[in-house]
């Protein structure tokens, strides 16, 4: 029965004007209750803004709300908590560029406590050594590193590693991660954008920046490695071609 649910109790208190984040934090751990908080008119503006990313609806936030110092402080205070885990994933979609740089230590701690995904932390922190290391951690955990000299691109089911990579690269999860990560990069110069017009609208340049960022920390700098950002990582080497 939900009558005794902590999420419902916290939601009801927030609907009645409660603003103490320690009291209402359980509401942000349940996506359905968080959406009610994001849309209810009687809720405090900061609590309402917290409910939007917690409910998976970051697009509700206006640019002014995203840039609000009160909201930034509230989210920073929830880093490392269960509620923060539910908020940060969607907050990475709309957070100001480099928002997490000033909270990098807390965000990285949250990654190690499994309270934040590595790619989310990298997107929030922005392009730097710390975020590159976080991406490296993601790859290291999800990929069994092949021994040198083996045909590691050939998968057990006979699918070529390259084609598996291409499939992963076009998956919605990869696309979202790539988009979020590319947001963290500095804006492209106008001349650079124009020079890439014939190939793509600047997206490939940003993707190549992220790839170079990751490849700079890989253990195989002498090989031709292609890494999708996130899960389903495979390695394609010169030997396997």
């Amino acid at each position, binding site marked *: *029965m*939900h*009558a005794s*649910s902590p999420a*419902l109790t916290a*939601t*009801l208190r927030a*609907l*009645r004007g409660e603003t103490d984040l320690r009291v209402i934090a359980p509401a942000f751990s349940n996506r*359905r*209750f968080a*959406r*009610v908080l*994001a*849309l*209810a*008119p*009687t809720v405090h503006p900061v609590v309402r803004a917290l409910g939007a990313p917690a*409910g*998976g*609806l*970051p*697009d*509700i936030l*206006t640019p002014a709300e995203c840039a609000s110092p009160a909201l930034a402080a509230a989210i920073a205070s929830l880093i490392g908590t269960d509620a923060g885990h539910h908020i940060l994933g969607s907050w990475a979609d709309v957070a100001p560029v480099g928002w997490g740089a000033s909270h990098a230590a807390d965000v990285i701690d949250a990654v190690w406590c499994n309270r934040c995904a590595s790619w989310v932390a990298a997107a929030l922190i922005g392009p730097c050594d710390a975020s590159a290391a976080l991406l490296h951690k993601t790859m290291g955990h999800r990929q069994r590193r092949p021994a040198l000299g083996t045909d590691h691109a050939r998968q057990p089911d006979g699918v070529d590693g390259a084609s598996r990579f291409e499939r992963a690269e076009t998956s919605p999860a990869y696309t979202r991660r790539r988009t979020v990560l590319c947001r963290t990069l500095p804006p492209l110069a106008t001349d650079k954008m124009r020079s890439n*017009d*014939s*190939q793509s*609208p600047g997206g490939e340049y940003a993707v190549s920046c992220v790839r170079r960022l990751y490849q700079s920390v890989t253990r195989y700098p002498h090989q031709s490695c292609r890494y999708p950002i996130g899960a389903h990582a495979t390695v394609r080497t010169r030997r396997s071609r």
Partner: protein
Amino acid sequence: MQRSEPGDLADLTRLAVASSMDAAWAAVVRLLSANPTSALHIVTAAPWDDLRVDVQETILSAADTDNICAAIAFTRGARPDPPAMTRKTAMTWKTARAFFAAVTPAVWNTLTEGEQRAWGSALGGTVLHRVVRSLGLDPAFLAEATHDVDLIAAVRCHVPDEDAMRGMLLPIAVRDLPLAAISRTIAALPPPPDPAAFVQIAGGIPTMPSALRDWIAANPTPQATVGAITALRVAMQRDNQPDHCRALAHALEGWSWQKTNALLDALPNDARIALRPDPDVLARRLTRCDRKRDFRQARHRAYRRAPVPQSRPLILRSQDWNTRARPYQRDHQFQRPQAPPTCTSVHPHHQSTQP
């Protein structure tokens, strides 16, 4: 853009709309001319009015050879009849998506109810945000729309004010709440500006009976709103019956039988049948031929003797017997082959209610 393929058409359209680049529009026209069917990706990626004139003309010029372009041409008034309506085999989910992505309220209102239902059934429920984008914030569409970023963008097309947008999306969030949490959540919310629309969206019913609208207007209280929404939600969901009984008992707490029956009478037919099954149907399905009268009397006594809050879920429990009767009969036939083939067996629940 020179190497773009039909699969890139949606992204290419968004880029062209956002940047107004001639090269992007030219690529869209090139891909569209080679494959008119890909007009579906264009009209779903951007509103019709945002497309450049040469793209619109290319789509309309292919109306005679392509069903999707013909559907779009009908929605824009370039064809008198929708081709998919004259050729039933041509009405596919792709045609319906193109139709709803480009249709205007004026064209939609000229269709008969049967035509509207046919187009709606061909569409499916996963892309209702495009219907909202084209036809506006009709509660009939919002009641079944998925709450996601696409829906937010569609609502934002019609409501520039942020507070009004949140007000339109709030009943959808209430609709997705657990059943047991609805009553306390609504009690903590301020009264909605349009209670009938709130009940329709939060109750998840695409059509609003006039009787229910009148009942809500006559009972403008949060308790009545909670009761109507809970009754609609319970009627739609058939699993986890004990939770539903508790939620219904909580929502209708303190109501008289007269008020409860007035609500049940105002509900849509399928919801009313689900909540208040016909006693004769129950007796026919649950009892032997010679015990039907006893069953009716026992059922009537059970309703009257039970305390008022607990007696309302008995309605649901009766329906539960009804739905469980068939497997019980099937299993029981192996144990009692001597039972008359024209009579159903007595359900154990029924025996326990007999005096």
